[in-house]
């Protein structure tokens, strides 16, 4: 599928119609072959045997859309974006008012015309639609650098907004629930970022530490009646220990092998949780996990004899949202703690060593950096953050089961880190908002959620391979000095 149409003679006016049609027809043929068996022939189970239901309308629709879309892409590439934009708008508007089979068709048509239209708009503005990979990398890096500069102002504003969120008028229980979920993933992302973004190790089993934290709180509370506040540091410790156990043997592996072994470790933890039913409850999980108290004041409507509950102590009317608000502040504080620690760690020799290891393993060894210890430290610190998040998850949900700790969770957390731009704290916030927060508002399209999730992972990677806000500036470099040099100012000049 090379660009046949772009081989046309330069002097020839207008696009080579035949070549365009041929290329689009080829793409449509591939689309036809792709959709024929899986979309066109649906298996239906009836009474133990499988029968087929045909759905050739969808196949035809898919093939037609791919054909049109391909023509649009070629025209964009060849420098005719205006008609593409017009047709995309017409199709999008037309589709909205046409009865189509299934809601997915609407989504596909609208998304497709949106992408094409955007591409055409960009092409109109820039007078060409595609940049080379290097150009894109460069542009992304510039954006990342700019974001890093403004992060100094945006960060505190975001934190202030997060603190003020529960007091805002539109913050109901549902919104706070979503905010807590997003916060949990932000915290997990910041935790994983230490391994992936700073130390440069690809961990596909981060959810294992999350599970260790969640189960250690649940089990300690169930068997020994430990309170949440006692369990929280314990969960962190246990997870760090799990990180040590896993990390010590596998850290000598490199790259992809390391990734697979961590994935295997995550699966081992999940299978053990699933099968060790005497302790973990097996697939039924653990329910009735106690909720945290506010410095000993529980959030119950009618507390036990001799116990003052939160609303009684402060003389408020009972409100179930108190607990949610408290949990929200709890996860916010935990996440900010993780952020603070990792920001400070980056400034320590330890953090410098991580970033150096990420850039060049062998050079670090030559410089006398003990890479096993450094990586082990990254692993343990990151794991303990995962454990803290896990015990928060357990107390927030009140119920945990192995289902919550499958590989897909690891993939989601990793996606947040990588899509946000490796090593960028703000990028992780944005990615978590996009990947976790946004889908929560489309609960109606629940069944397409993971489909769109997977697809957006691919698309963001293809569009921005280094993540949304990646900017790799070694933190030890005299960056201001270098900037000034680049800008042509004297190094000693006034700020």
């Amino acid at each position: 599928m090379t660009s046949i149409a772009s081989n046309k003679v330069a002097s020839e006016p207008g696009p080579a119609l035949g070549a365009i049609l041929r290329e689009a027809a080829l793409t449509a043929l591939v689309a036809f072959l792709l959709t024929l068996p899986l979309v066109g022939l649906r298996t239906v189970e009836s009474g133990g045997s499988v029968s087929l239901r045909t759905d050739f309308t969808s196949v035809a629709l898919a093939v037609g859309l791919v054909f049109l879309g391909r023509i649009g892409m070629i025209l964009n590439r060849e420098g005719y974006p205006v008609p593409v934009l017009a047709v995309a708008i017409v199709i999008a508007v037309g589709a909205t008012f046409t009865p189509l089979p299934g809601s997915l068709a609407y989504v596909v048509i609208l998304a497709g015309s949106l992408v094409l239209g955007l591409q055409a708009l960009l092409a109109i503005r820039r007078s060409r639609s595609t940049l080379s990979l290097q150009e894109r990398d460069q542009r992304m890096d510039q954006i990342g650098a700019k974001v890093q500069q403004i992060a100094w102002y945006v960060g505190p504003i975001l934190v202030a907004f997060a603190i003020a969120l529960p007091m805002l008028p539109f913050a109901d229980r549902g919104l706070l629930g979503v905010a807590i979920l997003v916060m949990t993933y932000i915290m997990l992302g910041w935790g994983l970022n230490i391994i992936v973004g700073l130390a440069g190790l690809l961990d596909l089993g981060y959810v294992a530490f999350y599970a260790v934290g969640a189960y250690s709180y649940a089990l300690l509370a169930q068997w020994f009646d430990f309170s949440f506040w006692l369990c929280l540091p314990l969960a962190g410790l246990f997870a760090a220990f799990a990180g040590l156990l896993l990390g010590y043997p596998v850290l000598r592996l490199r790259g992809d092998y390391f990734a697979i072994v961590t994935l295997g470790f995550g699966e081992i933890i999940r299978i053990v949780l699933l099968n060790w039913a005497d302790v973990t409850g097996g697939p039924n999980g653990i329910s009735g996990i106690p909720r945290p108290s506010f410095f000993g004041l529980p959030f119950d409507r009618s507390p036990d004899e001799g116990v003052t509950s939160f609303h009684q102590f402060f003389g408020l009317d009972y409100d179930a949202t108190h607990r949610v608000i408290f949990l929200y502040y709890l996860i916010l504080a935990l996440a900010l703690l993780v952020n603070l620690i990792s920001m400070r760690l980056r400034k320590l020799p330890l953090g410098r060593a991580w970033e150096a290891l990420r850039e060049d393993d062998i050079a670090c060894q030559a410089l006398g950096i003990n890479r096993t210890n450094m990586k082990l430290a990254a692993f343990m610190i990151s794991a303990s953050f995962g454990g803290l998040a896990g015990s928060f998850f357990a107390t927030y949900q009140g119920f945990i089961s192995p289902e919550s700790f499958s590989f897909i969770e690891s993939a989601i957390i990793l996606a947040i880190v990588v899509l946000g731009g490796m090593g960028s704290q703000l990028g992780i916030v944005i990615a978590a908002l996009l990947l976790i927060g946004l889908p929560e508002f489309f609960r109606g399209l629940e069944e397409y959620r993971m489909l769109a999730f997977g697809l957006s992972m691919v698309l963001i990677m293809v569009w921005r391979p280094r993540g949304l806000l990646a900017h790799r500036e070694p933190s030890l470099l005299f960056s201001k000095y270098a900037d000034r040099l680049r800008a042509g100012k004297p190094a000693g000049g006034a700020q």
Partner: protein
Amino acid sequence: MEYFFQQLINGLTLGAIYGLIAIGYTMVYGIIGMINFAHGEIYMIGAFISVISFVVLGTAGITWVPLALFIVLIMAILFTSIYGWTIERLAYRPLRGSFRLAPLISAIGMSIFLQNYVQLLQGARRKTIPPVIQGGFQLTEGGAFSVNLSYLQVVIILLTVALMAAFTFVITRTSLGRQQRACEQDKLMAGLVGVNVDRTISLTFVMGAALAAVAGVMVTLYYGVIDFYIGFLAGVKAFTAAVLGGIMIGLIEAMWSGYFATSYKDVAAFTILVLVLIFRPSGLLGRPEVEKV
């Protein structure tokens, strides 16, 4: 002893299936140095296409087993290869020459997408098909336990051996194989001497997908039950198989489920994978890689 032999036969059959999937991993890993995370899903798609083809053939009235089997194999290979080709084209090729993690993330996304794509289209429930090849040889008579070698197991092992032979021939003797080996060593240099690198990589994906499709057909026949989730676990296990050898992983699984708790058989496979990787990071039979600076 009879029980051991039975598990040995079962393990060999399983190992043959894992081995076929594993080839796709090793080929792709060799040529572009990435773990094709979506490969397990390719195999799952192969299994689904084979179920669909079986039902279509049943409706069309083709019931002569060898012919039906042949058609199903061809269909599965054809359509699954196109999936393999398209995935490479859309999700991996734009990322070639990008930084190391990008194609891997893209592959994970592709794997999630394909899983949900199949689940949405074909339903989340398990698909069962009636056994196609029945009967077998009884290897030992009498005793408390008789060892059986079913015709299906014979077909699976023979087909695997034939495919492996054909695959070895392609890699070592044909011009395509030479191009693949050239790209594996140095893509830039191969391109300079006139190898079409993009096309070679595409064909590598197609070959891997075709073999995974055959594995999908085999697993459909062997277990008679598939669902949209089989790809993930099979993918991880096939990766293990790529390191340990398919036969090894099949044997471990069969022996473990024969003698210990079935529920922990995956733990056993993973643990052995971890141990092997720790002590022999380049695989059981691989030569250690020298890192050059």
